[in-house]
């Protein structure tokens, strides 16, 4: 029997004798005594163990033992997969080399260059989501990859990214909610080298527009639906051959309809906006436009809700890309621009503002990716999408404004891209729809 065992043995016997004594009950002392005994014995045992312990110095030439990194599929791991990374890199390269240099001219012209958009189409932006059985390259839902691609393109230019991605909103909607006939009728065209221009028309020119309380009506008339109303801020509507239009049914429930641009009753009016000028935003006037019942995209009420949410995630991704562009532009600027004989980044007001941008952008980006990741996994993501939209609207616009501020006079003039980014970032808080990831 070791010293420690013997010591604790004696201790226990003594403890049991006291604890078992009936006199404690009579005197009402049982509870306090038990507490005292508990503490006493615990400390006693602890010091007994410590007394017997000795640290022995051991020399070894082996490696220290450290916990290894867990596998990368954990709850908060947002590292892109190899594929996602490659897709993002490819999109980013196009953004850096093709979109960014063309952005200022496209903004001034209020139009995207046709060759540039062809180049973007050749990248196969839309094909990624179309299943292989329909000639595309997709095999599983890829909301995260889509978000990363949208973000990478918006790093080049948000308006051109919107113009380039607008057709994917329609093909995505068909992939996600179209029936077999609708898919077979329209999707093969999107796989083609010369994919049709198409756009999602969700937004309306209403005060405090609510995408769940649409003013555009879809009245059931026999075998047809009759659409009437105005859709606003539709990207590249003038060039589009196909639209997916959101309209309220007779009972007020929102639904999505496939509308071809050749239908009678459809007219398009240019609606240039503060930002997104290269996306050639326009209004869509639907004047008793008649579509067959088969043009309705889905009868599932959840689909429309998902469409709004996916669009919000897409906007958050765009805002995140453009905000990152602004941050990457700012940091060298504030380090190189001097005032009072030193870089302006030495001023706390400047350094803190840049740090705030970085913090807010990280928050926006993480929330956006979390929403995209949940959408991809097929679990409820409406809350995350709403959070991402809110951050994109508030922080996106703030980052744009701060970026202009930090560049001083240079922020205001068109010599620098920051004023354009500010105007584009304002869109994230205004527009509903346009894209689907």
């Amino acid at each position, binding site marked *: 029997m070791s010293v420690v065992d013997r010591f604790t043995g004696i201790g226990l016997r003594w403890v049991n004798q006291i604890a078992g004594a009936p006199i404690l009950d009579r005197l009402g002392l049982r509870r306090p005594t038990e507490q005292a005994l508990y503490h006493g014995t615990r400390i006693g045992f602890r010091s007994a163990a410590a007394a017997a312990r000795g640290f022995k110095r051991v020399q070894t030439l082996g490696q220290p033992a450290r916990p290894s990194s867990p596998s990368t599929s954990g709850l908060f791991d947002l590292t892109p997969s*190899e594929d996602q990374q*490659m897709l993002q890199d490819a999109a980013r390269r196009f953004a850096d080399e093709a979109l960014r240099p063309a952005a200022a001219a496209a903004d001034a012209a209020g139009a995207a260059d046709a060759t540039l958009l062809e180049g973007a189409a050749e990248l196969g*932006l839309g094909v990624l989501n179309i299943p292989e059985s329909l000639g595309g390259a997709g095999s599983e839902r890829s909301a995260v990859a889509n978000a990363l691609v949208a973000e990478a393109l918006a790093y080049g230019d948000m308006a051109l990214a919107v113009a380039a991605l607008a057709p994917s909103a329609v093909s995505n909607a068909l992939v996600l909610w179209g029936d077999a006939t609708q898919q077979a009728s329209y999707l093969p065209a999107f796989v083609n080298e010369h994919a049709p221009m198409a756009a999602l028309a969700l937004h309306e020119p209403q005060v405090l527009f609510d995408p769940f309380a649409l003013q555009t009506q879809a009245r059931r008339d026999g075998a047809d639906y009759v659409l009437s109303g105005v859709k606003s801020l539709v990207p590249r509507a003038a060039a589009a051959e196909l639209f997916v239009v959101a309209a309220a049914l007779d009972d007020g429930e929102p639904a999505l309809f496939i509308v071809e641009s050749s239908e009678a009753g459809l007219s398009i009016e240019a609606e240039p906006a503060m930002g997104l000028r290269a996306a050639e935003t326009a209004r869509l006037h639907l004047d008793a436009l008649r579509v067959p019942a088969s043009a309705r995209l889905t009868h599932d009420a959840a689909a429309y809700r998902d469409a709004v949410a996916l669009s919000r995630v897409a906007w958050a991704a765009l805002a995140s890309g453009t905000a990152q562009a602004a941050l990457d532009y700012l940091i060298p600027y504030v380090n190189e621009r001097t005032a009072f004989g030193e870089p302006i980044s030495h001023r706390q007001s400047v350094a803190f503002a840049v740090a705030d941008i970085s913090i807010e952008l990280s928050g926006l980006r993480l929330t956006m990716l979390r929403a995209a990741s949940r959408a991809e996994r097929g679990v409820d993501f409406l809350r995350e999408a709403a959070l991402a939209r809110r951050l994109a609207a508030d922080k996106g616009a703030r980052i744009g404004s701060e970026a202009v501020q930090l560049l001083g006079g240079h922020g205001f003039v068109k010599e620098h891209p920051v004023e354009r980014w500010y105007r584009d970032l304002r869109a994230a808080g205004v527009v509903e729809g346009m894209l689907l990831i």
Partner: protein
Amino acid sequence: MKALVSVKRVVDYNVRVQVKSDGSGVVTDGVKHSMNPFDEIAMEEAVRLKEKGKVTEIVAVTIGGAKNEETLRTALAFGADRAIHVKEEGEVQPLTAAKALAAVLKKEDAKLFICGKQAIDDDANQTGQMVAALLDIAQATFASKVEIEGDKAKVTREVDAGLETIEVDLPAVVTTDLRLNEPRYLKLPDIMKAKKKPIDATSFGDLGVTPGAGFKVTKTTPPPTRSKGVMVKTVDELVSALKGKGLL
């Protein structure tokens, strides 16, 4: 005709390279890597030759650690039909690389070996030439135009005096110069399809190559920083300043 293209994973050309504080090399941890730009040009040329019907199969090969698989995926997305990964975690010097590539070239019996004229990390500009020498086959370096006619290749080279056009018998080694072509943007669907293309792993041992160290890097130092200039107000001041420095 089969074409073999070697691709190397290097620190991305946009990265501002930093020298390690102990001077043992440059910082590569946590730094963006991508395919050597000259190798992209080599891949693009191979793909163009395939589009013209001159090449029927493109095999991409790389030497290096597990991360180099990304570079092979990029090559497959570019248009390579399959890839070979010579796995080696340690340092690989040009002669060792050339021996391994020569062994792969021989094994694959490819008629054309295209590689970048140099990799932008060590700028050795040796590997292509050594492959040709080891196999005793023709070499056409610094190509700015490549035409395949039968079992010959007509290659225009950029030399100091201008352009030189040479004809080489196949099999041959072609190393690419900057103006050979402009690599295309990777198509996103091709990136997805690249996943399904095969990558065969091999090693120096399998290829019968013993890695050797022909030279040793003793020290890496950053280029000296430019010291601050002096502003002068008049020409006289400039002249006297230059005289003062003994430059006039």
